[in-house]
């Protein structure tokens, strides 16, 4: 079911020299950052080149209490059509509550009630989209009390319930495993790996005894090891590096992409 994507990187203007140097890289674009009628020039060029481009939403709030906003869904659908996306992705998270913006993707309670609400939200999103939707689990330093599922069980249940694809983020899995005391490798036994559309890898740093998934630091070796373990379970159709700031020299980003390519077993 998954398109062959290969190796990719989240589009940022600062990363265009790296993207330009490898015509095979696929791109992800933060959906809320662009206007589908007036794409930024770099992104428009990549679309014209025929690169695979995936819109990645951060503000649909599929884990929120309200059904997703039809205007936001319309934007996502329009952008997907404009860039010829094979799929779009969003988070299992809430981005606002009672009209107050979080400015971030925040974790949801892992309860049966939340599962029902999120599944209904996801169904509304799927109905508005012409392309498949992949759901990404988030990293969170603070978790909800009294969970009724552990994290991989909750993700698996939601994927089963909605028929959505899975955007597996090995850095988020590593972060939550490290900070909340579960083994991310064992989590791979529970997650529906056959539903993976593509995989995210991002950098992070340990600060005050906690691992922070910053996307502004290098990818740590433990995350690459987890990616390699995931690749041993079966071939991966796509793996994407998320770098949102603190951009290093192009050669360092290139080296990081090469390390991801090797760990993921991409040819």
């Amino acid at each position: 079911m998954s398109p062959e994507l290969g190796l990719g990187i989240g589009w940022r203007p600062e990363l265009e020299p790296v993207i330009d140097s490898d015509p095979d890289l696929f791109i992800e674009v933060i959906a809320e950052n662009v206007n589908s009628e007036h794409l930024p020039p770099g992104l428009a060029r990549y679309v014209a080149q025929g690169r695979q481009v995936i819109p990645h939403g951060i503000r649909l709030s599929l884990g929120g209490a309200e059904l997703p906003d039809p205007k936001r869904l319309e934007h996502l659908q329009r952008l997907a059509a404009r860039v010829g996306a094979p799929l779009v992705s969003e988070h299992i998270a809430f981005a606002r509550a009672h009209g107050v913006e979080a400015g971030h993707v925040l974790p949801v309670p892992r309860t049966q009630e939340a599962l029902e609400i999120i599944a209904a939200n996801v169904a509304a999103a799927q109905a508005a989209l012409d392309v498949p939707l992949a759901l990404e689990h988030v990293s969170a330093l603070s978790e909800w009390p009294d969970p009724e599922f552990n994290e991989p069980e909750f993700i698996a249940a939601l994927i089963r319930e909605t028929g959505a694809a899975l955007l597996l983020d090995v850095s988020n899995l590593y972060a939550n495993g490290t900070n909340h005391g579960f083994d991310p490798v064992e989590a791979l036994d529970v997650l529906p790996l056959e539903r993976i559309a593509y995989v995210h890898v991002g950098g992070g740093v340990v600060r005050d005894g906690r691992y922070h998934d910053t996307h502004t630091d290098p990818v740590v070796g433990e995350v690459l090891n987890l990616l390699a373990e995931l690749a041993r379970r079966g071939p991966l159709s796509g793996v994407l590096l998320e770098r949102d700031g603190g951009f290093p020299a192009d050669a360092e980003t290139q080296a990081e992409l090469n390390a991801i390519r090797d760990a993921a077993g991409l040819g």
Partner: protein
Amino acid sequence: MADREQYAERQKAFLDALQLRAPVPEGFDANDLDAAAAALTRKRAAGVRAAWPALCYGLGEEFLPRFRDYVQATPPPCEGDYAADGFAFARSLPRELLTEQAKVELAFARAANGSRLTAVRQGRSILVIAAWGRRRFCLTLGRSQPF
């Protein structure tokens, strides 16, 4: 049947604690929540600092405490736009805290946000920014600065 209203209430309580407006909701680990709140504030501060360098670096050591006060009072703008977030932050500050460069940064932001005519004093002269559609015209009035 899932209760969406109660679900929203619980999420709002969590969000208010993360944005430093409310105490840790019952059942949450206070240390974890404090770490998460600090990380979110740091991320937001970094974004605003990148979008508003003159304003933020000009505040020096005042930046972080002032930014924390601002976070408590003001949720992020709708699309997580740091330019808009910094604009609101700048307007929340007492005018005397802004350096001359910060005032110029703010004047250009006002022009970008629709002000047709903005003026800011720079030493003995006045910088005037006129906005016409997407164009900006700048004019310095007053004594020229010796090099």
